[in-house]
């Protein structure tokens, strides 16, 4: 099922109300060619289910993994993805851009 922007935030609220651990990832900065605009959201639950996107599918896997940490610790994280980080992250943006993604727990 395709999710529109408002569906993603609704899911974040609904999943949390269902008692799941939930994190919300948001694109907060972009440089160069970025697949999703600033403000784009990805919502993740404690089981690794997710809805929405912060890239064209390039870094969602890494963001989901970090989000599971955030759900457990409650500490927000600021992630950066780009060509320069490819070695460190094993993922990157093939479009050549750089993005920063803020991941926070929905308390």
């Amino acid at each position, binding site marked *: 099922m*395709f999710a*529109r*922007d*408002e569906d993603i*935030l*609704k899911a*974040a*609220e609904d999943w*949390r*109300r269902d008692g799941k651990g939930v994190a*919300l990832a*948001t694109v*907060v*900065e972009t440089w160069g060619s970025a697949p999703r*605009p*600033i*403000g784009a959201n990805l919502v993740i639950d404690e089981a690794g289910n997710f809805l929405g996107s912060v890239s064209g599918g390039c870094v969602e896997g890494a963001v989901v993994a*970090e989000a599971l940490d955030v759900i457990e610790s*409650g*500490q*927000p*994280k*600021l*992630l*950066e993805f780009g060509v320069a*980080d490819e070695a*460190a992250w094993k993922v990157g943006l093939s479009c050549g851009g750089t993005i920063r993604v*803020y991941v*926070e*727990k*929905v*308390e």
Partner: protein
Amino acid sequence: MWRRSSERKTEPVKLDILHALNAERAARRAAVVVTDIASGEQRFVPAAAIAADPLRDVLESRLRTGKSGMADTPSGRVFLTVYVPPPKLVITGAVHISQALAPMALLLGYDVTIVDPRTAFASAERFPDVRVIAEWPDTALPPLGIDRYTAFAALTHDPKIDEPGLIHALARGCFYVGALGSRKTHARRVERLTAHGVSSADIARIHAPIGLPIGAVSPPEIAVSILGEITARLRLPAEKAATPVDA
């Protein structure tokens, strides 16, 4: 990479913020969420509360552009998530093309309303997920709050229904106005609108024949061509969004 600051507050406020935000969006009201990236602290500012907010100037300017982004404030660097209501699509004509256009436009995030006084066409069964108003445009359109965030498509082929709609849409400054019909039909429409006192500048804003020239034949294909044209109007600068007209 990511960084952590040594002290953080985690308060059980985020679900409340999400709830308030989802409620404002459902009511088609704008809002901003202010997040201190370093501390994780967050607050929710509905449009109505911006005038009294310490960050009033930056919040107002962001709301005008509708763009989220980082901002430097006296209390540090924050991320502003800006939520503006989705654009509206108002259609005259509960016709076959509209049955394809309405669900596609919903997928694109438009708030869709269909107006057609012919009750045989304007039924909820034919249009399960959108608002259908079985009234004449003169009655149905004024309460809809049609504005520059609205696209208007006239699809009935019937001047009695389409033209009052076109006149209203042009007067309200819709970002897109399109009308179904051949060049010949449109030429006659232009004569009638001119006789009615619509300016030539306004008439020139009507996309007619409606839709991008992609050779669309079936109702869903015509819907794609219309939504392509609306998207160009919404996203491209005006000069690039001009529909190419083949001779």
